[in-house]
């Protein structure tokens, strides 16, 4: 028998002091229902077989671990490997989670799917699985994000989802999330809310992490096969933090592996216009969890800023807050400018257009390349592809041109 792993979070959904369930009473029953369903399904052979089948044949897993030779050469330092989540169906890691959650929804007999989305990658991944299972689907998306991620909006609509433009507050992911929660409270019995990151009330941060952990598990096997060991460093971008947790979680106990999460520094960490929650925020409560958050002295949430819609969020997953406090994961940040130039650089060097979110992780390596040895093997989670970001590129070129 396999020794029982010490499981984080605890029964109350706490990662150390973080997490929990800060939600209106109406929602509690749905969270308990979901916790119960997940407790059963995660051990259920049939569920796991079905999930694995979808991951292999629908999502396209395992994704390659690719040696980025020309990027490595360009940096003149460490050896860089890309974990190619951009090659999954719908083009980002988000689908690993939506496939899992919709199978839960199906088991629970839910008739309607809702989701929030920033960059549109989670919305697209949700609309995709909802189409596959023939369930009606509503995606909440900030009005500003609808503009800067237009290609994804059209795809979601093509897949049959209703995309609701959220015009309140910052008109980005934060408000899309609030609006999705309002829908959920109102349609609580019939509707399954597919949360797209390791955020929200318990059990979501745990469920999303578990579904995304496939990234790290594969990476570990692939590293063993390629060079018979572990990577020295792993880097991933952090908005809510689902691709980062997914790639890190299986390596948390391998203390020789440096884990680095890269947040969005926007116009700069001192500019006040950023989304660097762990580096510049403090613990608070938003969208159902106690976690690091960017808010003013009066407790009002400050509008974040990032060029990348997927990182433009004032909160972060509670498990990241714990990993930040314990120091197991180092957190850094990259600015809009750094991400944008790396976006172009990697496209030219590798023939891979990385998502603007992912470009933050890559930009960290460009900036800090001299801090690593030539022998260091670094795995970057290439969380998604960047063709969705063409409107941003166009806008930036117009502004500078």
């Amino acid at each position, binding site marked *: 028998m396999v020794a029982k792993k010490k499981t984080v979070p605890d029964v109350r959904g706490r990662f150390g002091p973080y997490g929990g369930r800060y939600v209106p009473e109406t929602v509690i029953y749905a969270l308990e229902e979901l916790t119960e369903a997940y407790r059963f399904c995660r051990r259920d052979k049939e569920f796991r077989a079905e999930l694995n089948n979808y991951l292999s044949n629908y999502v396209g897993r395992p994704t390659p671990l690719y040696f980025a030779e020309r990027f490595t050469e360009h940096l003149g330092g460490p050896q860089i490997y890309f974990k190619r989540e951009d090659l999954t169906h719908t083009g980002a890691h988000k689908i690993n989670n939506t496939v899992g959650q919709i199978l839960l929804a199906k088991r629970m007999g839910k008739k309607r799917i809702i989701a929030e989305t920033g960059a549109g990658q989670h919305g697209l991944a949700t609309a995709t699985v909802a189409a596959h299972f023939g369930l009606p689907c509503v995606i909440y998306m900030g009005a500003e994000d609808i503009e800067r991620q237009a290609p994804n909006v059209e795809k979601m609509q093509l897949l049959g989802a209703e995309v609701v433009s959220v015009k309140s507050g910052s008109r980005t992911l934060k408000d899309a999330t609030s609006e999705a929660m309002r829908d959920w409270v109102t349609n609580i019995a019939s509707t399954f809310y597919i949360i797209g990151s390791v955020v929200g009330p318990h059990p979501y941060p745990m469920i999303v992490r578990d579904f995304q952990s496939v990234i790290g598990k594969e990476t570990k096997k692939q590293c063993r096969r390629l060079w018979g060991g572990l990577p020295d460093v792993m880097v991933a971008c952090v908005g809510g933090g689902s691709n980062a947790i997914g790639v890190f979680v299986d390596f948390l106990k391998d203390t020789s592996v440096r884990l680095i999460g890269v947040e969005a520094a926007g116009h700069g960490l001192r500019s006040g216009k950023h989304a660097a929650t762990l580096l510049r925020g403090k613990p*608070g409560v938003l969208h159902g969890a106690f976690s690091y958050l960017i808010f003013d002295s009066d407790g009002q949430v400050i509008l974040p800023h990032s060029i990348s819609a997927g990182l433009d969020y004032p909160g972060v997953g509670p498990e990241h807050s714990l990993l930040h406090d314990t120091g197991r994961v180092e957190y850094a940040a990259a600015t809009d400018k750094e991400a944008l130039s790396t976006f172009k650089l990697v496209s030219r060097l590798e023939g891979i257009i990385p998502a603007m979110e992912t470009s933050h992780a890559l930009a960290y390596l460009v900036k800090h390349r001299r801090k690593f040895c030539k022998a260091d093997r670094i795995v970057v989670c290439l969380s998604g592809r960047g063709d969705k970001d063409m409107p941003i590129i166009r806008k930036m070129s117009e502004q500078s041109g």
Partner: protein
Amino acid sequence: MSRIRQTLAGRGKHKLLVPFLTVGYPDFDTSIDLVRTAIDSGADIVELGMPFSDPMADGPQIQYSSQIALANGTDMKKVLQAVEQIRAGSGVPIVLMGYFNPVWARGVEAFAAASHRAGADGFIIPDLPVEEAADFLLCLKDLDLSAIFLVAPTSSPERVQLVDSACTDFVYAVTVAGVTGAARKFSSSTDAYLKGLSRSLSRPFVAGFGVSSPESAVRLCRHADGVVIGSALISAFRQAKNRREGLKSVRCLLSDIRKALP
């Protein structure tokens, strides 16, 4: 005896009218006038909304009022000033209602103490369910402030008991699964749910969410000990031509409900 307990003890067959108004909507002074108008129109308890940037349990009306209030500089200090000013002219119990983060940011203990000094009588924090409220409850208990938690149609019988025992004086029953908002029709399942609560709760309870007219108030009060009315007041004020008309609309709506209730 606390002001809330006095109100509850002395109510007899009288049903409680509990208006909700957002501090700072449409501006600080007018929001105080609105509360005074509500008290003059027969409010038994007043709920003061503490504005928050991300009110996820609220519908469009209260979202709007919070946005306006924040835009005109209403912070937690102003909320306490409002309590002081209202308290100076009235003995009606004042309950502060809002989201947890602003309270947390000011320090739970410090903010509870400051609220008590200003003359507040209790708290409703919709995103702080009983399980997460242990520390907050201790602070409130020390100051003899009332803790009011919510029950919802989705609450299990066990949770109803849990909420009942965690509430200090009375319980807030959410009438339907959803966000705050006016102009809803209540169904027979709402009646059955409230009837069930009147049997299972040991404490008095007020019903809120979607109360917009004397008829809806009377219907809920067949089983509930009172009603909360919020979004409909903000909506009435918004629809009025000017400030004076707005105050009048709010007064008329509350007086009509007051007259219709036992």
